[in-house]
């Protein structure tokens, strides 16, 4: 038997009205897909917003880093000044002892690695009389301490 002797009739069939209904079904499928495109647009907008926010953060971080650097350089400059020079400056300034004590961060003194042994803070123990004299001189009332 040769192939050319066979008829080419289609053995496959389709349900009734299949091709009549298919375009409507297809249109329905496309409607389901369409919101995807909108979501994609929204996502794109969100991405742009995120990018803008990141850019602002980066700028802010750069700014903060610079400020920190400036602060660090002030600290560095201060560290180069000797304690004696600082004390002399404070004596010459109009800052009263009370004001000075009020604004002093005691934790810095407590944590200081530098031994406080200059003439203002003698290392040897003081007798009561000397302490009273010093307190009178600096006008500090005992209860304050």
């Amino acid at each position, binding site marked *: *038997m*040769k192939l050319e002797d*066979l008829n080419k*009739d289609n053995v496959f069939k*389709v349900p009734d009205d299949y*091709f009549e209904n298919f*375009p409507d079904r297809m*249109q329905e499928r*496309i409607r389901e897909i369409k919101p995807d495109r909108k979501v994609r647009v929204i996502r794109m907008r969100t991405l742009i917003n995120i990018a803008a926010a990141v850019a602002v953060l980066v700028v802010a971080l750069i700014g903060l880093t610079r400020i920190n650097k400036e602060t660090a350089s002030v600290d560095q400059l201060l560290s180069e000044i000797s304690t004696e020079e600082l004390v002399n400056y404070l004596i010459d300034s109009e800052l009263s002892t009370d004001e000075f004590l009020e604004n002093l961060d005691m934790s810095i003194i407590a944590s200081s690695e530098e031994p406080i042994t200059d003439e203002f803070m003698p290392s040897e123990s003081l007798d009561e009389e000397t302490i009273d004299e010093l307190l009178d001189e600096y006008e500090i009332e005992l209860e304050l301490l």
Partner: protein
Amino acid sequence: MFARTLYKEKEILKLLKDPESQDLGFRQLVLAYQQRLYWHIRKMVIDHDDTDDLLQEVFIKVWKNIDKFREDSNLFTWMYKIATNECLNFLKRNKNQFKVSMEDSNGALYNKLDSSPYISGTAVQMKLQKALLKLPDKQRLVFNMKYFDDMKYEEISKITETSVGSLKASYHLAVKKIEEYIKLD
């Protein structure tokens, strides 16, 4: 509601590219090509429900990728190519899923020929269909396009991206195999 008039390829493309007329363009596209694509897929996957699923996938791919379509090429050839790839991938997936041997690779399709609804033909016609399932999928594809759809080798070459010489050789080999099978049976 949309008109039932069949639009020409260029008109359909124009409608599809304009967001205002996309829906009308898509409907015209489906109306114009649904039958030819359906029969192309059906001959490969045999079952109506599988064909229906694949046909929808083909049109969805067309819808999603219409922007990438080059207007200097033929829209139907492009769609035929998408449908062909969908068919071959589907058959490959099924074979991997059922882990059938290469010799019996189309066994599941063979069973569908006997059991699926919407299939009816004379004994000789059914014998031919069963003989076709003995061919490798790509050779069966070439045979279908040449024998049933009466397509030119040049056209098949564009769809399958195979040279005309290879296609001619493949078709003649397929005819020989089928005639032997029919004789033996």
